[in-house]
């Protein structure tokens, strides 16, 4: 059952929600105040490591494959280095820089306005589809295009159609080709199909995707293999493998953000006149963390702290761990759910939902925990078999203005629509 009023769902009064908002604001202010040389050193060191891994991976594959003696270990090592570098670049560096987490350094080389990441999607389109559409309208049906990415049915409130029977297959394809799935995300293929997309904007976006995708393909699948001479096939294969590893890893991490049980969905009634505090509350209810050691968190761009990331998308990711301690305390204080679990369990739940929702609601039952710890849960109306309402996606002109803390996005024509 999607939530239409976060306050009511959380059994909090308006004053309590406002107080929660103030406490969350205070944590933000404290972290902003304490950003300093150590944080700057962290991101600079990480960028150095990541670029070092990239160079080492390319050289290992280039040189190591030339002799038959070293070929096998060189391929294994090269693939590992390249995959590591791409994962670090996409998750802990690119994603977070584009959120504006490091803009405070006033460093033009590590800034959300001009960072371009090592994946097929152009940064500008990512900043729109992710920073704005996903982070502001998190898990709101019809507003957040990340509920299934227009490919999968991930909420029981989404209309079922026979197309959904193929979900396990689409899911596998999406995992393998994740980079390319993401690159088409901001195009909004659903709107294109319905003929609602502005053709000029579509052409501009397609051109951007084509240019970026071409450069990525040329680099990994043409230029580097060509440089390897007779070993071009080996290097090509290694590059394909490393990209697939990166795709699978990012797919798993991203599917753990909002699809495990406990991450709630919301209806458009919720975002009508939503206050900042209610927005905070929605982020807590709509996101799911996973547990792990520091290395796992760095390799996943600190998205295991999905709740903290959604509360403070533009605070430096290396601080999420310390923030999470405070958020847990707040959740206990206000008796709010704080969804977390080991990575395999969180992903397992997401996968189960994908498979389950390939069938109509009448054949399955919900896994969402409806009650918080309080004794008197709100009256739940009986769940409709399959909701009749088709919640179509909204264009930017139908959405409220974006919030500042989500990180910037920019494109020609944005002013016209704003």
């Amino acid at each position: 059952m999607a939530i239409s009023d976060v306050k009511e769902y959380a059994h909090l009064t308006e004053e309590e929600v406002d107080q929660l908002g103030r406490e969350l604001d205070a944590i933000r202010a404290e972290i902003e105040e304490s950003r300093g040389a150590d944080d700057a050193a962290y991101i600079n060191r990480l960028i150095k490591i990541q670029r070092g891994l990239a160079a080492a991976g390319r050289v290992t594959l280039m040189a190591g494959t030339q002799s038959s003696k070293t070929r096998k270990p060189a391929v294994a090592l090269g693939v590992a280095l390249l995959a590591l570098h791409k994962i670090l670049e996409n998750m802990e560096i690119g994603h977070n820089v584009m959120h504006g987490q490091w803009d405070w350094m006033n460093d033009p080389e590590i800034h959300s306005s001009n960072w371009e990441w090592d994946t097929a999607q152009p940064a500008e389109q990512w900043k729109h589809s992710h920073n704005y559409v996903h982070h502001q309208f998190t898990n709101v049906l019809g507003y957040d295009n990340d509920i299934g990415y227009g490919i999968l049915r991930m909420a029981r409130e989404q209309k079922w159609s026979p197309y959904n029977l193929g979900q396990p297959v689409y899911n596998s394809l999406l995992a393998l080709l994740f980079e390319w799935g993401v690159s088409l995300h901001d195009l909004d293929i659903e709107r294109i199909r319905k003929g609602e997309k502005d053709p000029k904007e579509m052409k501009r976006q397609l051109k951007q995707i084509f240019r970026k995708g071409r450069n990525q393909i040329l680099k990994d699948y043409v230029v580097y293999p060509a440089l390897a001479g007779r070993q071009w096939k080996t290097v090509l294969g290694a590059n394909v493998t490393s990209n697939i590893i990166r795709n699978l890893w990012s797919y798993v991490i991203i599917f753990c953000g909002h699809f495990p049980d406990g991450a709630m969905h919301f209806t458009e009634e919720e975002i009508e006149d939503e206050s900042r505090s209610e927005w905070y509350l929605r982020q807590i209810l709509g996101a799911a963390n996973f547990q792990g050691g520091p290395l796992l968190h760095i390799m996943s761009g600190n998205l295991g702290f999905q709740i903290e990331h959604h509360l403070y998308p533009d605070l430096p990711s290396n601080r999420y761990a310390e923030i999470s301690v405070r958020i847990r305390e707040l959740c206990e204080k206000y008796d709010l759910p704080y969804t977390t679990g080991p990575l395999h369990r969180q992903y397992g739940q997401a996968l189960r939902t994908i498979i389950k929702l390939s069938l109509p609601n009448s054949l399955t039952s919900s896994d969402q925990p409806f009650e918080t710890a309080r004794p008197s849960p709100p009256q739940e109306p009986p769940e409709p078999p399959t909701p009749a309402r088709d919640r179509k996606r909204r264009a930017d002109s139908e959405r409220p203005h974006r919030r500042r803390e989500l990180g910037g996005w920019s494109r020609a024509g944005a002013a016209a629509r704003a």
Partner: protein
Amino acid sequence: MANSGTIPWERVRRAGAKLTTPLHPDDYLRLLNPLWSSRELRGRIERVIPETDDAATLVIRPGWGWRYDHRPGQYVGIGVQVEGRFQWRSYSVSSPPKRDRGTIAITVRAMPEGLLSGHLVKGLEPGTIVRLALPEGDFVLPDPPPQRMLFLVGGSGITPVIAMLRTLDRRGTMPDVVLHYSSPSKGRMIFRDELARLAEKHHGLTFHELHTDADGMLDLADLGEICRDWRERETYACGPGPMLDAVAEHFEANDLEDHLHLERFSLQLGGEGGEGGTITFRNSGKTIDSDGATTVLEAGEQAGIGMPFGCRMGICHTCTLTLVDGTVRDLRNGDEYDNPNEPVQTCVTAAVGDCTLDI
């Protein structure tokens, strides 16, 4: 950017970008040497030479993209990371233009309460990487130099002047020059020994020093006593704001303002203010009502926008943003900018009516 003359090199780097896309080859080369990048101008602090108790000369080796064609008297922007954040200031280049040494020097005095100047004088280790902005400024030594010159200098205002004097010394073309240099005390006088040496070496150079703690400030009415023919000279004045105001007034009163050249180290917003209006920051959709005296930069900061900034005095262009729509006025001279998509310096402009910025 400066390699337009060496096309093959540019071509190599463009080809290299096919291997490093979406990054630039420079993003990898800088791992080997931080100066091997022309994405942003950088420099490495080579030496920090103490000049007085509170002033030091920083010798900087600029990286790729630097042009050594600065004119004596010009200043450069320098960006230094303090507590993780780049802070920008501008300082006169004190070294004469000379390419083969591969370094430039700036001389900095630690200002009381000046967080950055204090850091530059006391806290910079050789080897530190700083950001640089290309030389700018009109307070320069003309070529050829005027036959007779007068320098009126107060405190750290000596830094552009020493660059001019060093250039004249190096070229061996010292004309008839009178230098009047005021400083609170002998010990606070930057370049005192060198100036004395130059005055000894060149007959044309006369060096007056005034220690204002002991002898009081220069009364401009007495200028004729220091330099009888001051009216016939091209005068270059550099120093604290009040001193420059007094000099400007004195020259105007004598109808000689055409022969006076000033260098101010602080922003003077002498022009008319804007009318104010609502400034919209388009990426965030944030708006703020701003009056005509508040700069766009200040307004943006008040609205909570992460505005880029540098020197905050219209020099370094770090704060430049695209004006999508509307009009802004340059508070220094009243110039108006109203072309759609025109880049404007936010630190010295204010809104004239409603306007929209791309950030």
